């Protein structure tokens, strides 16, 4: 084929390429002092939970027969429990579980939401109606209740079942948002273009639609980490969540909340305050990410929460 003479050779207007987009995002994120503080605290708490135990002389399952219900001291930094367990060791152990539950659950839940929401939005028809009805149904029955009811069934099994359940009741609102984002993205010309050149549907979803929501997905997953940590605490508080011998921040708070009004309140306050610090930091990171990735998103969470 004869190639035409170039009628006009234009050069790109300005160089804001993808790596400079990344730099821009990084710059926006770094400018948020609170987000930076949040990120640092999250990293510190990770180190605290996973590296801390190696440098501390008490193990979480070790009983100090010389110190029952002892207030914080040089030997036991966070004090000990009624049974002589070291509170700091327990807290570190509990935070490990809370962190891992938050992370796995968040990835699972955002993943389910992405697939379900995009499927419903893209294919419309019966798939859409089935998924929307399922979402409505699960929203009618709060996940907290269902997991609590099911909890006797996973007594003595692995805590991973609990994580899966948490994720299974966390994805619906995100899925709605993704569904409505898909509905509008489906009408965007670049999706039409792909369809009209013969690209298969599932490829369009994974190559064009979901990547273009990546900002939203990242933000959602981050916020989900904190929601799931909170949900874990709530359920474990009543004994519906993490089961002994596993320990989480929720079980610690559940075991010791009654001490809060006594002189032995340290048993409650240490894990509780660390928990609040953790969740707050994760939320600050999520908010910072929202500002950096999606400065105009505003009510991303609100957009899709349409009425039934």
């Amino acid at each position: 084929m004869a190639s035409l003479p170039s009628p006009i050779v234009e050069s790109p207007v300005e160089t804001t390429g993808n790596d400079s987009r990344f730099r821009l995002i990084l710059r926006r994120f770094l400018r948020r002092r609170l987000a930076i503080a949040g990120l640092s605290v999250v990293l510190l708490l990770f180190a605290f939970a996973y590296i801390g135990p190696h440098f501390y002389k008490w193990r979480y399952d070790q009983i100090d027969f010389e110190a029952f219900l002892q207030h914080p001291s040089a030997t036991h930094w966070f004090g000990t429990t009624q049974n002589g367990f070291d509170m700091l060791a327990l807290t570190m152990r509990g935070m490990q579980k809370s962190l891992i539950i938050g992370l796995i659950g968040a990835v699972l839940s955002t993943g389910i939401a992405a697939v379900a929401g995009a499927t419903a939005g893209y294919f419309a028809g019966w798939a859409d109606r089935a998924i929307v009805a399922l979402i409505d149904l699960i929203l009618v029955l709060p996940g907290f209740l269902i997991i609590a009811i099911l909890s006797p069934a996973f007594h003595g099994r692995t805590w991973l079942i609990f994580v899966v359940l948490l994720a299974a009741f966390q994805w619906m609102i995100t899925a709605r948002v993704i569904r409505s984002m898909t509905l509008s993205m489906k009408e965007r010309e670049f999706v039409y273009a792909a369809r009209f050149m013969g690209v298969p549907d599932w490829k369009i979803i994974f190559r064009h639609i979901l990547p273009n929501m990546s900002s939203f997905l990242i933000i959602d997953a981050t916020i989900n980490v904190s929601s799931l940590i909170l949900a874990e605490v709530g359920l474990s508080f009543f004994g519906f969540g993490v089961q002994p011998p596993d320990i989480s921040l929720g079980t610690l708070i559940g075991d010791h909340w009654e001490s809060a009004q006594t002189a032995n309140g340290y048993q409650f306050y240490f894990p509780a305050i660390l928990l609040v610090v953790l969740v707050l930091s994760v939320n600050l990171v999520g908010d910072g990410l929202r500002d950096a990735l999606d400065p105009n998103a505003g009510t991303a969470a609100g957009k899709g929460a349409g009425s039934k």
Partner: protein
Amino acid sequence: MTQSRPLLEVKSLSVTFPSEAGPVEAVRGLSYHVMPGEVMGIAGESGSGKSVSSLAVMGLLPRRARIAGSVRFEGEELLGRGDKDLSAIRGGKIAMIFQDPLSALTPVYTVGDQIAEAVQVHQTVSKQAAMDRAVELLNLAGIPNPRERARAFPHEFSGGMRQRAMIAMAIANNPKLIIADEPTTALDVTIQAQILDLLLKAKEATGAAIVMITHDLGVMAGFADRLTIMYAGKPLEAGAVDDLYYRPRMPYTIGLLGSIPRIDAAPGTPLTPIEGSPPSLTNLPPGCPFTPRCPMRVDLCRKVEPDLVRMNGSGEEHFAACHRSAEIEQKNLTGLDIFPAPADRTRDFSRVSDVPVLRITGLKKHYPMVRGAILHRRIGTIQAVDGIDLEIREGETLGLVGESGCGKTTTIMEILSLARPSSGAIEVLDRKTAGMTAQDRFQIRREISVVFQDPMASIDPRMPISDILAEPMLTHGVPADERARRIGELLKMVGLRPEHTSRYPQEFSGGQRQRICIARALALKPKLLVLDEPVSALDVSIRAGVLNLLEELKAELGLSYLFVAHDLSVVRHISDRVAVMYLGRIVETGEVNCVFNHPAHPYTQALLSAAPLPDPRKERARRRIILKGDLPSPANPPSGCRFRTRCQKFADELNDQQRQKCIDVDPVLCEHGNAGSDHRAACHYAEGGKLN
């Protein structure tokens, strides 16, 4: 008119917004004045600062904007006044009309309440009196059943009606000055004619002066008395409209006028494109902002920004900001002298063969109107496309024109989805889509590709150019080395550098992105390109380049185009044949010169007469056909002829007996004019009307 003092006097206005990339200098040293009762135009492309400057006059810019200079209204300085002082003037002595009338009205209040509110802000009247006044204003603005319609919410109004309501609100307090910011840009051409007509009536009724802001030099030509052309925040040329249109002295103005396709020009009249795109408003280099795109630039242009200087040869108030305007004036240079003439584009109709690439017969597309989320109840049928025939031969461009809601988008979606139509047939390269297997359909997709309107939305922003261009080839199994070679070839073909393959779409301007879209559409060497409003999202100065490119590609590659547009002048410029759509039907079709020179259908005549010309004298001399009302709902089209409810002929020329035929009998497309020509119109009383 006595030589009174100016109503509004803007001097050295500048507006700067802080931004992440540094301060954005949106307006830099704008000066103009408006005399009582006159129409002052401000024209410019997006980002030229024309809207920002008017918001600055009204004191409606966000707080972070830094404004300097002087704005005097009736001799009093407005800049620096507080919200309280300004709100007494806003809506009272100065009123404003915005571009998008849907978002400009509060969705939760009735139209009547919103107009009554404007009355009550400035006049101490009872609520009832204000409401009566609102109804009166709606009536004045030409809204039928105003008392009833005043109780409607904005979303229940059509675009044109909303703009009428905005105008009613603007004249509520008999303003001295109306600022109209792109008042017709969001509207169809026949509605645009209605609104411009109404604006002039409103001006007469109130005696107000108007500041008219638009990018459309056609609209401006017939509307404004004087004009300022803005570019990159600066006025580049100002003067009486005749001076600017007939004796432009600044290369940008000259280029703009030369790059607009005209409805009164024969097809193939060359357009002179302005290369490049407007500069970013952060970190503007010194010198004239138009320098990088100017074919007449000299070293001085890069260093010193020229001021507006009086042109001696024309009217006494003609100013241009160009170091070389004296030379232009002296030699009387025109667009063709200054801008490089595009390659020889004599039309070669022998290329058009008789082989049809696409044939559509009796295509219908009806959508159910449903209610209910889970249990769908059908409450009606939208007849989006209702029985149309089209044929495109190899090497031919068919222009499909019509206003929004006429069904042209539905038509191309039906073609592109290659699905089995609910009624009628679509044949691509002699193969009916109805009988196709999935495999056939996939194969035929190679032959037909599409370029959409909005280049920002039609490429995936997360992919580099190489992936974007490779996608169709990857999908259709073109081997990797062939793909790589082809990508370079495609980029060269559309006038982009092959080295740019690793860049991302954000790095390109609108015109460049549209070139990328065209390159992608050509990747598989298709026979037919469907072009859906390919230039209407682009700035005026960029359109010409893309249109020229399309023409060159067609000549070189022997492509066929289905060119869909609402802009008649663009269609006339590029098409061989044209089909005019109205409410799901084709009302007139034929060779482009036949249809445009001798429109037979009243709708075509109205469309042509509504299309503005960038030519002040012709515009002033024209008699416009103003169609009544809005497009009827496609769910409930009128009986008989679908156009009769708005038809000027039906209303003014026919007798009752003739009208009865229009009401009872649905006209079919039948041959018109010379036997053997394919000029056909669907009107019982078709005639050979003439443009103007």
